[in-house]
């Protein structure tokens, strides 16, 4: 893949730490776009604030780097006003589910056609390692120096309950699956959510003794499994990967077209 066709070289090097998983997500996101043969001018990437959000600056699409947590709200305005555009909304875990939690569930409920990618590194990286709603009980962070008593959201269950019509999960170890899932999510008509576990060796790992990026990715390999696999039955602690939800539901912009039709009768 000629990656230079899809990035803004002028703006490199990127700001991510060495070993960060976000570059793997960027790479595989671009692969998905290339394999789908999408026109770059048809894509709007909207992001919020945080390490993950910087992804939008590096890609040669229409890019909107917005406010912390608000990416989906901006994206809703873009999509609704110009439904032919393809919306990709990469978000961090705190971005999507703490400050942006309300927008997340409501975008899912509307089933508006866009692809939300939760780049889950379980920590606030840009501000230096505070716990997020996805860090999980018992983890350590600069704001949980004794142990985190906050329980984490299950992104998949939350998205499904909120009404998302496509919900999937994978990790940066499973790079090819990232490409595959993003492709399917983009082609899905409706609100799609992909949670991608992404390592943060700088903060999450250092606080929680997970080793370097290689050990963290090995952890993803050893602690995840395909949905409904035999391994999962034997070891319920394993995190499932794959597509959890894929259902045909009325899409929001299509539904609004019916409103326009009714109003003009």
């Amino acid at each position, binding site marked *: 893949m000629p990656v230079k066709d899809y990035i803004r070289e002028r703006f490199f090097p990127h700001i991510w730490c060495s070993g960060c998983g976000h570059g793997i997500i960027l790479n595989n996101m671009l692969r998905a776009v290339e394999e789908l043969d999408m026109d770059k001018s048809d894509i709007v990437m909207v992001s919020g604030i945080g390490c993950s959000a910087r992804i939008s600056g590096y890609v040669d699409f229409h*890019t*909107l*780097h917005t406010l912390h947590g608000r990416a989906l709200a901006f994206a*809703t305005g873009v999509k609704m006003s*110009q439904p032919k555009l393809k919306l990709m909304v990469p978000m961090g875990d705190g971005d999507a589910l703490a400050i942006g939690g309300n927008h997340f569930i409501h975008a899912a409920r509307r089933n508006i056609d866009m692809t939300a990618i939760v780049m889950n590194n379980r920590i606030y990286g840009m501000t230096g390692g505070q716990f997020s709603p996805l860090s999980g009980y018992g983890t350590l962070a600069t704001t949980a120096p004794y142990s985190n008593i906050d329980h984490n959201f299950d992104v998949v269950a939350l998205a499904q309950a909120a009404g998302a019509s496509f919900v999937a999960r994978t990790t940066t170890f499973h790079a090819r699956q990232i490409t595959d899932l993003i492709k399917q999510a983009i082609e899905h008509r409706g609100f799609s959510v992909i949670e991608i576990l992404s390592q943060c060796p700088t903060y999450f790992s250092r606080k929680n003794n997970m080793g370097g990026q290689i050990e963290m990715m090995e952890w993803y390999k050893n602690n995840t499994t395909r949905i409904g696999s035999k391994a999962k039955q034997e070891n319920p602690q394993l995190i499932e990967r794959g597509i959890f939800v894929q259902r045909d539901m009325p899409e929001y912009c299509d539904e609004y077209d019916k409103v326009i039709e009714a109003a003009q009768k």
Partner: protein
Amino acid sequence: MPDLVKFIQGNQVVVEAALYAGLDFYAGYPITPSTEITEHMATRLPQIGGKFLQMEDEISSICAIIGASLTGHKVLTATSGPGYSLMQEGLGYAIMAEIPCVIVNVQRGGPSTGLPTGPSQGDVSQARHGTHGDHAIIVMTASNHQDIFEITVEAFNLAETYRTPVILLFDEVVGHMREKIILPEKGKLPLVERLRTSVKKGVDYHPYLPREDGRLPMSDFGSEHRYNVTGLAHDMWGFPTSNPGVVHGLMHHLVDKINNRVYTIEKHKEYYLEDARTILISYGASARSALHVVESRRRRGERLGLLELQTLWPFPFGMIREKCENARYVVVVEMNMGQILEPVKMSLPPDKVFLINRVDGVFITPTDIRNMLRIIHGKGV
């Protein structure tokens, strides 16, 4: 189509004026006393093929309209005090990223939940200073339905001209009051359309490089120029930078594009100012009572005049100085603790400036103003 006479609420006038100006996208959240704007938009927009969104809160409402503005649409959101507080974050974004949009705040009593159905003009200072960081802002208001229409259209024109959010600060009285309005014929009021770049495909487009006249031509999301928009300090490509020289230039551009054009932007109305010994300065619903007093006193030969502000910010210091130069008394009439009184005092010798106000959720009446004027004029209670 000829002019159309209607008898409607002020909030509905805002909707009709916005549509006249070319609005085709609205996002909002219900809140008293601005809800009728959201309701009428829900009915009217699909009729013209436009889009209406009821969002989950005011934060997302302003974000959604900014997103829609970037695809080339004229956009608006409407709210009241508490919702306007929530919008400060998005407002700052629109200022920094220079996105044309119009935000209506139909004021009610505050702070906090305050007096949801009581009239107030308590958000005047917030409209100027509410969002963080140095910035300039255009804030306009009106006292009657005909003016609401024209000022709303003007707000869209200024938003497009200066690539900036424009605040329309109305109040509960004009928002809910019904009165006659003549909806102007199409073409009667001038409209400013989106200035789009003439840079050809494949040529480097600089979304944040002002032309010689200070304007920044835009390119719609979805068209051939792909660029970055951010709330971070940015360079001419819209990419984040902390280069002090670039940031300095950006800050001055954002403030100067508005504050250096006060005389072009500013609008006001004058009543009997020529020989006025006492000038009332008022705006919005308060100006209705003020005008009533001025007209009734004039019939008795009293030299009373009214200067009705329609642009509250950038504040027209020079205009106030000029118009009030020969007055003995300058009396600010407003429904707050003196939010316009302060800049008026900065414009004039403070000892000739007085305040007549109400902050109890009751509309300020001509009688209130007359009684206070007696005291100011030394005629006793």
